[in-house]
């Protein structure tokens, strides 16, 4: 690597680190349920070797009944050991792996194209990507997957010539299987694609290929019992389109199908209805739609999924990215190395498959595994365009200047929206206010026998455990978490009881009630109101 390249890469990494670590504990404005659950479990593992349910070093964390893959929680435990038990520490592994992903993406792109400008530009685009920056600042597993995917693929590409890297690739891919649910579908699919594309190279490295196969096998031996167990399938059950809990759109479609079946049973024998409006057609077309929507420019530029997945007034890509992305694919399909193009295309097309069978699509978080293909293709487009402006220095300079201006405008808008407005715009989505509620309640708990917290606050027990820094050993001695189910009314610790309540029917003088404003009758006057950052009411605390 040339000295100049190294300096540029270090600058890009510094930018990436700044965008991921600056005010990490405070922005997004509060930890959401998955983050606090991971944070509490990680600390519990660190202190007791058990999770909040009392399971000894689990390979699937039950958490909020979604049985999270374990790797991120163990990494968080290490982070808490270093930084102490705080929001920064919980989000630290994501930010660190998010930053390291820039480096591995650089390596991967260089291994693909053997071009420093393409690799550096890709690294830069990923460093400032709204999609990647946003999710690198969350204690969720998804973003970390990108580090393991890029590292694994990079190692695999190097391993074609230096076989010793093939087991390294196997290690990264194997670890990824224990990091995120979607990776359990995507990694085998992409791995198979890599083997088919480069089978001659793999065959040449027989010894290392064998070692790699053994490594993968070891991971699979541990993984298969998990994914085939009832617990392992809980997450799929909770998010898939096949569950009885339908989204609004699915319910509307199902209603249509039922109406059509009724039409057919009166218009004909009903056989035609069964032929056309059966559940296979319903789910087949729905899965296809779910899959295809991940390629919708509307999703990329104006994303309509959860408000916390993007800043206001923009999506997960920059506007200027779209034309360059199309151009990049054009250049790749027309002129580039066939195997490289196929690999990128495979990555791009396979990545949304796991999300396609889930509800609430398109989903920026579940499909983030598509990164960094966007950035690679865009970088390739820019470099190809630049190289085509031959012998005309003026055009080259003008092109560079225009691109810098357009990207500067796009990036500065994103950074402004993120660092200035994001917290206020999205605090409701981040379940803001739980920390303040817990701390306020704790400050006056001596005056009460019981503190009743409404489960309408969405998994409030993990928020209170986390923000009150409740000793895990003590919690487990009290019984630990009973379940993370939505209807669970039995979770409690100390004076805190987490359940639905009917305030007028149940209240007594020695009780303190905490819930949404809608949990209380209109005549009630709270002793404390906690607002979201935009001024809307979030939580009421009321004397019994």
């Amino acid at each position, binding site marked *: 690597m040339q000295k100049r390249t190294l300096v540029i890469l270090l600058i890009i990494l510094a930018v990436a680190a700044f965008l991921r670590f600056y005010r990490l504990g405070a922005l997004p404005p509060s930890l959401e349920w998955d983050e606090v659950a991971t944070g509490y479990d990680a600390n519990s593992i660190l202190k007791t070797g058990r999770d909040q349910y009392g399971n000894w070093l689990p390979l699937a964390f039950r958490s909020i009944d979604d049985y999270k893959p374990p790797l991120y929680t163990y990494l968080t435990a290490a982070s808490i050991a270093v930084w102490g038990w705080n929001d920064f520490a919980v989000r630290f592994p994501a930010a660190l792996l998010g930053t390291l992903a820039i480096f591995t993406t650089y390596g991967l792109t260089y291994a693909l194209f053997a071009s420093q400008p393409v690799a550096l530009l890709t690294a830069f685009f990923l460093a400032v990507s709204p999609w990647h920056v946003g999710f690198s600042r969350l204690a969720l597993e998804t973003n970390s997957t990108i580090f393991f995917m890029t590292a694994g693929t990079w190692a695999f590409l190097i391993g074609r010539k230096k076989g010793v890297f093939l087991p390294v690739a196997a290690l990264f891919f194997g670890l990824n299987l224990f990091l995120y649910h979607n990776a359990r579908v995507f990694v085998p699919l992409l791995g198979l694609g890599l083997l088919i594309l480069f089978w001659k190279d793999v065959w040449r490295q027989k010894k290392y290929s064998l070692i790699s196969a053994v490594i993968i096998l070891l991971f699979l031996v541990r993984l298969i019992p998990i994914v085939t167990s009832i617990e392992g399938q809980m997450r799929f059950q909770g998010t898939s389109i096949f569950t009885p809990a339908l989204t609004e759109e699915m319910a509307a*479609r199902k209603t*249509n199908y039922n*109406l*059509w079946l009724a*039409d*057919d049973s009166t*218009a004909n024998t009903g056989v*035609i209805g069964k032929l*056309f409006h059966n559940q296979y*057609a319903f789910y087949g*077309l729905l899965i*296809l*739609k779910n899959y*295809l*929507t991940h*390629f*919708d*420019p*509307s999703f990329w*530029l*104006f994303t309509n999924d959860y408000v916390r997945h993007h800043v206001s*007034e923009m999506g997960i890509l920059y*506007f200027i990215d779209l034309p360059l992305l199309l151009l990049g694919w*054009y250049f790749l*399909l*027309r002129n580039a190395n066939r195997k490289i193009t196929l690999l990128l295309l495979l990555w791009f097309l396979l990545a949304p498959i796991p999300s396609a069978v889930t509800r609430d699509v398109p989903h920026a978080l579940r499909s983030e595994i598509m990164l960094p293909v966007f950035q690679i293709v865009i970088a390739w487009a820019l470099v190809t365009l630049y190289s085509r402006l031959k012998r005309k220095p003026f055009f080259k300079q003008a092109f560079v200047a225009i691109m810098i201006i357009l990207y500067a405008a796009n990036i500065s808008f994103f950074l402004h929206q993120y660092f200035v407005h994001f917290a206020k715009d999205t605090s409701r989505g981040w379940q803001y206010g739980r920390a303040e509620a817990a701390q306020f309640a704790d400050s006056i708990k001596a005056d009460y026998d019981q503190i009743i917290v409404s489960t309408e606050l969405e998994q409030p027990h993990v928020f209170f455990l986390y923000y009150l820094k409740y000793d895990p050993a003590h919690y487990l001695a009290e019984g630990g978490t009973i379940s993370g189910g939505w209807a669970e009314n039995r979770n409690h610790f100390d004076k805190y009881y987490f359940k639905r309540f009917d305030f007028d029917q149940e209240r007594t003088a020695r009780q303190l009630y905490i819930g949404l404003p809608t949990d209380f009758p209109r005549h009630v006057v709270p002793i404390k109101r906690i607002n979201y950052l935009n001024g809307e009411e979030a939580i009421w605390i009321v004397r019994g």
Partner: protein
Amino acid sequence: MINNIKNQKSKIKNSLVKISGITLFWIIVSALLLVVTRFGLLGILPPGGANSFWFRLPTACASVLSIIFATLIIYKLSANKKLVLFSGLFLAISPWHIEQSRIYSPAMLGLTVSLGGVFAATLTRKSFVRLLILVITGVMFYLVYPSVWIFNGIHFSLTINEFLQNLFKLISVDFLFYHNDSFWAGGFRTQGVLLVSYLPLLLPGLWYLLTNFKVSHIRLLLPFLIFWILAASNPLFPDQREFFLVIPYLAVATAYGAVVFLQEFESGKFIVKTMLIMFAVFFVYEQILFFHWYTVHYHNRIKNERIYELEKF
């Protein structure tokens, strides 16, 4: 001189007049589909009043004319018989084209006038005549399709962000293949502009067009861009029908895909052929599904909506 003779020979060779049996078969199939889907049960499907047949007849005739004009234009521009036949076929079985053909639709009349104007323009090389055709077409377009929002003195009131969102909605998966909500009364809210099975044809078609794109083709794209922008900038979006005017472009792109499909099928290996046959089966299944849906369920929905409107208003 020799080149001229060669060109003329090539034209005669490609002439529509000189047609093979299979070509004739496709023409007959398309024509039959066209007649049945446009005029069959026209007065009662979708449900209407006593004079619905006569009220809808001009649009149905215009729809047939639009397909004839479109195929002639495509033949003039490409001299590719397969492409012409496929374009005609896809327009004839296009869900949105069928739906608009069977109601009183200013958009369909506007489309026919536009295509007629373009076809007339291809018959002459004189700039003055072309200009005259343009003016006449413009006036006729205004007369048959006065409800286009810019003719009604409505001011552009969208923000740039809203406008861009509208632009992308019109080419979104949801709108194109699942949920055409561009027109409330009689619209296709449970169907897209195209059937999902068109996608494997549309993509290679677009790819072919892209890879053979020349700067001179920009003028051919202009109407598409104009109608797309016009539809997206409608203040009443998504309740608009201007985007319907781009339907011939979608048919041509799909037809290019079908030509590629056919070439792959003829030269493909067993596995490729098997995959293509499976796709063809899906395509036919979905097309039949559409006809079933249109004749049974769409009919019922419109009937219920009419009853509701009569009771409510």
